């Protein structure tokens, strides 16, 4: 009996978690080369390509491009326009995690997280 109650509670929680995580505003997390066919709010993890131009507080925003960090599709470029607070370590050559709205051609970024460049980086050969 106790096992049935415990399993029922666990099953209810699992269903609730599944529903919440899928229907509760979850965001696709993609590489720049995977953006084709997507629209709307998503997050992109990529490598910042220069030149980084513009002003994040001006109407034109801060403009740069992203490519895959690694893998065979590094030639794919995605233009990004960002409005907001530029993070500390942001510049060309950094690995970043960008959240924004993709319209099929460019990404209107609402937040940029620059990955910490010294912690736990892979050992250099």
């Amino acid at each position, binding site marked *: 009996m106790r096992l049935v109650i415990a399993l029922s*509670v666990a099953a209810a*929680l699992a269903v609730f*978690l599944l529903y*919440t*995580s*899928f229907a*509760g*505003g*979850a*965001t*696709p*997390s*993609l590489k720049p080369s*995977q953006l084709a066919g997507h629209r709307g709010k998503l*997050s992109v*993890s990529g490598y910042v390509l220069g030149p980084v131009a513009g*002003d*994040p*507080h001006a109407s034109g925003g801060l403009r740069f491009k992203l490519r895959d*960090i*690694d893998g065979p599709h590094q030639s794919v470029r995605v233009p990004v326009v960002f409005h907001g*607070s*530029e993070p*500390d*370590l942001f510049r060309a050559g950094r*690995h970043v*995690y960008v959240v924004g709205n993709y319209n099929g051609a460019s990404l209107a970024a609402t937040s940029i*997280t*620059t*990955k*910490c*460049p*010294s*912690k*736990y*980086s*892979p*050992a*250099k050969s």
Partner: protein
Amino acid sequence: MQDLGRAALALAFGLVLYAAIGGGLGAYLRRRRLVVSARNALFAAFGSTAVAAIVLLNAFRIRDFSFAYVAEHSSKALPFPYVYTAFWGGQEGSLLLWLLVLTGVGSAAVAFNRRLTTEVLPWTVPVLGAVASFFALMLVFVASPFGTQVAPADGAGLNPSLQNPYMMIHPPLLYLGYVGLTIPFAFAAGALLSGRFDERWIVATRRWTILAWTALGIGILLGAKWAYEEVGWGGYYAWDPVENAALMPWLAATAYLHSVMVQEKKDMLRVWNATLVCGAFCLSIFGTFLTRSGLINSIHSFAQSPIGAWFLGFIGVAATFSTVLILWRLPLLRARTKLESLASREAAFLYNNLLLVAFTLTVLWGVAFPLLSDAVRGEAVTVGPPYYDFFLKVFGLPLLLLMGIGPLVAWRRTSLRALGETVLWPGVAALAVGVILIALGAGSSTAGLLAYTFSAFALGAIVLEFARGTRARKALGASSWWSAFSGLVARNRRRYGGYVVHAAVVLLAIGVAGSSAYGATKIRHLRPGDTMGIRGYTLTYKGSVLRHAANHDELRARLAVTENGNQIGTLFAGKNRYFAEQQVSNEVAIKTDWLRAQDLFVIGDEFKKDGSVYLKVLVKPLVNLIWLAGLVFLLGSVITLWPDAREQRRLASRTEPGPVPITP
């Protein structure tokens, strides 16, 4: 010197491997000399790892850039003491710190308990040795901090964000917490392997578990304080996978520290406790895997790292070992007593455990969701702060309420009438607080209002418990109210230290609710002489200031601040530009109103060539209660950890035969 470091690590690897294999054989064959030599090998491994750590620290001290690791994480201009804290600024050094703490804490736990758990200890040492062998293996063959190179003219420097006093203590505390959870795991596994799953391993590890749990808790709070002051986005916890990696084992350990009391008192929840201890350990390794694998997007993880696969394998082995062990010993773990009533202290502990474990699993689900969705749907999907915030309310608010009810309920059973009488005054206090807050306009956030009301209830229950106990001791003949109060705490440090920790959680809840539900934010573009206002504060931009420091330049916006027309000070918010690292860091300005525990938080977001500046200004009500909660949490933990000869004798008498246990 690199050769000495490498040799010391290789020796440490050999020693811990011997502790694992030789110790296991000794325990199985009951060969005392083998068991003792395995224990001594563990002690010697600590010494050998310490030598490796000293070699690396010395390389940092003399800036020996022929050590590739030193060149990657320091520079000539890196000031003291950051040149030493750069030790754990990267993967290899942090793994070395992990092994050092593991062998050190493991040796101490074994040495202090060698007389208490004579049957369990022979099996504990091999488990500790096996865990240490994994980390030593990583350091010797996969991620050595003693890689050599032709020394460059200067090093790459340390990430400016890590050049912060909080970062000097935050990582070692987290490691102490993670590694400390290995101790109860090793003793529990030892107890299961030896077939002696009585109270002894709990007595032996209780203080070690509290120490690890305290270190992890304070480490998480210091990390939050660092994020608040250094990262400079105005928050302190972003539900980042790396932050969650520390939170999950802490939640599991919190559940264990509560449920273990039920096992001690009522001899129940043995399977549950064994599962929680193993789960907390696996979660601590899982967190490390997340941080270092690069599989999940986080501010800390960085690209795919080969070390992740090793950690995944180790988690698989640890989880399988734990599961098999518990299933094998299930007959031994069956409870001898049953829950008598759903309205009892043990039932309250059980509800608390269910909520804590449910929240832990929810966080785990959120962290692992990108991996799972990628495997199932072929597309990684992340869940953000709204997901976690929602479940924090779902599980956190009932937990807050239970924290008030639990201490007031009697063991075995409580009648509804008795329960009603005991919760009357805390209930009245909570109701009064709720009504006052609604009258003051705090009803705009239902979750915030509930958090405050439940906090008032929990705080009322804590005060009531202290008041009752003090009054009883005064009636028994204490010379003064103070001696009655201090005697009360001294005679039962664990219980009243626990209540102080509960008070810390209440402060934390009030601080989190206040700063997140009732804050204000404004972004303005100001030219010299311009002003902006927010929540009664007026900031006047007086122009920018440039200062030169040893390894960086400091650019600041000078801001005169008034509150309701009264001058309250000048703030300098801006950025540092580090030369060697070629990086910029945000340096926020914070004006604290201690009376209201409120911060005026200013970010110098962008400096324009025409002398103007973009400012982001936040008002964070009650945020300082979060940091105060850390101090109160530490105080409660110290009270609980403080050696208590009377309790030790009592516990020892319950675990006879055997001498008085020695705990740190």
